[in-house]
């Protein structure tokens, strides 16, 4: 029952946001980059449902187009972090010894930096762009994934079904792929869905520092960042992307829980 409700609410929320992201370009009420200086900072009204920003651009249109950027950045970043982190975690946890020590030394060194600082450093080298952000944040979040995976693998490798697989003559790589990885899925789904939210917020923090998705292209993050000077005079500028980020996070978390339960044979 809880599974269904999670799936229903989470699926609906994410489904709507994704549908908007994909189709936005065709039905925004205004061109998202059209500047109209006579209509600067208009409050929400019949003509501009969510008001206009400091350049007179329609907030609703920018929000719709920004969904595409924000969702792509978040989803691909999480994928990148998962791929790198899972690979490191599996190898370190399963083979132990010097492989473990070398990989974890590197991993812990990365973990010792705040993720945002690491991303900042990488971005100044790569230069701010959508894919630069994906790469930088992906690398910044990978160490956390590696830690979680390594922890799961360490406890799994002591289980007798791993030894049974070895006794059957299966190779280490096959055992890793067939028996270890699938049993790490539960903690990974939880981590991945919470990471989805962190990434959207990190992107907004990067925008704030001028290294996010470069304007004039809209993303929820840079909309939120540019709204800061108008927090008192034009609250709608920060509320609109804020609410979208919150709804999106709620959606991914509910869907993540549903996914985890669905993938678990015990439920």
């Amino acid at each position, binding site marked *: 029952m809880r599974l269904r409700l999670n799936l229903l609410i989470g699926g609906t929320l994410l489904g709507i946001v994704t549908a908007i992201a994909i189709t936005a370009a065709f039905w925004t009420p205004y061109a998202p980059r059209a500047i109209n200086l006579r209509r600067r900072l208009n409050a929400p009204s019949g003509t501009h449902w969510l008001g206009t920003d400091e350049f007179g651009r329609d907030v609703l249109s920018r929000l719709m187009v920004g969904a595409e950027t924000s969702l792509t950045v978040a989803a691909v970043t999480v994928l990148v972090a998962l791929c790198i982190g899972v690979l490191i975690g599996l190898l370190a946890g399963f083979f132990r010894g010097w492989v473990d020590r070398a990989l974890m030394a590197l991993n812990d060194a990365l973990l010792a930096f705040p993720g945002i600082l690491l991303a900042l450093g990488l971005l100044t080298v790569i230069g701010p762009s959508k894919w630069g952000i994906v790469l930088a944040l992906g690398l910044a979040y990978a160490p956390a994934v590696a830690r979680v995976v390594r922890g799961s693998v360490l406890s799994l490798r002591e289980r007798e*079904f791993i*030894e049974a697989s070895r006794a059957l003559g299966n190779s280490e790589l096959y055992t890793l792929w067939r028996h270890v990885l699938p*049993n790490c899925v539960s903690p990974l789904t939880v981590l991945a869905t919470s990471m989805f939210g962190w990434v959207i917020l990190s992107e907004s923090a990067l925008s704030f520092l001028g290294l996010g998705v470069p304007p004039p292209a809209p993303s929820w993050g840079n909309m939120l960042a540019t709204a800061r000077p108008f927090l008192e005079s034009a609250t709608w500028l920060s509320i609109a992307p804020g609410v979208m980020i919150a709804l999106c996070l709620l959606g991914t978390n509910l869907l993540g829980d549903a996914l985890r339960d669905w993938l678990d044979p015990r439920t």
Partner: protein
Amino acid sequence: MMPLLRVAALRVTAGPSFAAVEGASFDVAAGEILALVGESGSGKTAMARAVIGLLPPGLAVTGGSIVFDGAEVTAKTVRALRGPGIGMVFQEPMTSLNPAVPIGVQMAEGLALHTPLRGAEINAACRAMLARVGIADPAACLNAYPHEFSGGMRQRIMLASVMLLRPKLLIADEPTTALDTLTQAEVLDLMVGLTREHCSAVLLITHNLALVARYADRALVMRRGRIVEEGKARALLTAPREAYTRALVDALPRRGPPPLPRAPSEPLLRAEALRVDFAGRRRFFVRGRAVQAVRGVNLAVHTGESVALVGGSGSGKTTLGRAMLRLVEPSSGRILFRGQDISTLRGAALLPFRMACQIVFQDPYSSLDPRMRVAQIVDEPLRHMRRLSSVERARRVEAMLDSVGLAGFGKRHPHALSGGQRQRVAIARALVRNPDFVLADEPVSALDMTIQKQILTLLRTLQRARGFACLFISHDLAAVGEIADRVVVMQHGEVVEEGDRDAVFDAPRHPYTRALLDAAPRLEGG
């Protein structure tokens, strides 16, 4: 006279649809030892926990009454009873002591709470009790942590800290199920001795009927939440009235028929002067002492033969078995399979050996991948038999499942099976490639008595039909007697006695073998 504990029409339920205990009534007289016997899920633990008010969340007492020492036990009064009134010893000695707190502090808690003793007096009382339960250095033990002791020692410490408060009733929930036969006898003898000194009554919960014969005055048999039979322990075992009790008695392992003489042949799998050392734990700058788990053992298993490897915990029997299967790296010595030394082969070169030798593990809960279905688990070994088509593979899996009595279970996940069914899956996985040799590492010690009987019978039937050799590792001599042709006894990593089963059982030569045989609970004579 009013009994010490009177339980009347007790009902323990989880929600409206499930009753763990249904209308159970019984008395415990002061100072008597009452055994509560039943299989997993019979409600025996739920009933005992209801008495001391420690039901797990979800279960609740919804009817009947519990009167202890003349007063009704309620949620309000039960806390004061715990300790001086009713003490409890749990099954799992590895987890029932707090690993982060020294033993002295844990023992002192109860005394400080329930007695006027303070400081040095508490210390003296703890030391005296630890000495009584056979701890060699009680003063040092008070400052030690639980991980420094073996399972048997921890259970003694647990018993000591409970008996310090001289409870009128001691509830012991499967106190020795996690221990080997020798330690089990020691701990139970100690428990009975200690409770006799303090005139405490004992409620001994167990699935092992043989223990009842040895230790209890009276016994209750529980099944599906109801008490089905009650009586004097001896009468219950020798002349059970109920069919269910008779089934339990029949499930006790008995020595099988004497093995047929076999023609002398080349050994199938042989260990020669095999040693296994484990490197000591690494501390900051020094390495701890290496552990010599197996010290130069010679052991041969012939085609079709059933050899039992017997010993207490820590005797090295499991390590020896795993080393012979190349699951643990031997430090020196040779392992010969059909005359070929396989102790240094790796990777693909080892595959023919892997194809011919398989293993069944002790714990069926951890030996099956929880994310795979039964049919997938049994099919996996066949991926190395590349000549089989997928249709043939499916047919073979089906036939294998059928022969272990699990026809139609292929689509299930392990969590939807009982312990005995899981062990059948593990046996099917080991046998589906028709191996020549199977290592069975304590395959029944995690199971109920009736299920043990079924699994042992299944193993013997399959062995007769398929002719594989079996090395059966166990601490339980009764189970060994049922299945083995030959017995090998290990102690401290060395083989101390070896011979035909009947010779070893009837005329043991080594004192350790004799001690093992004496400790094994038996119905006849016990």
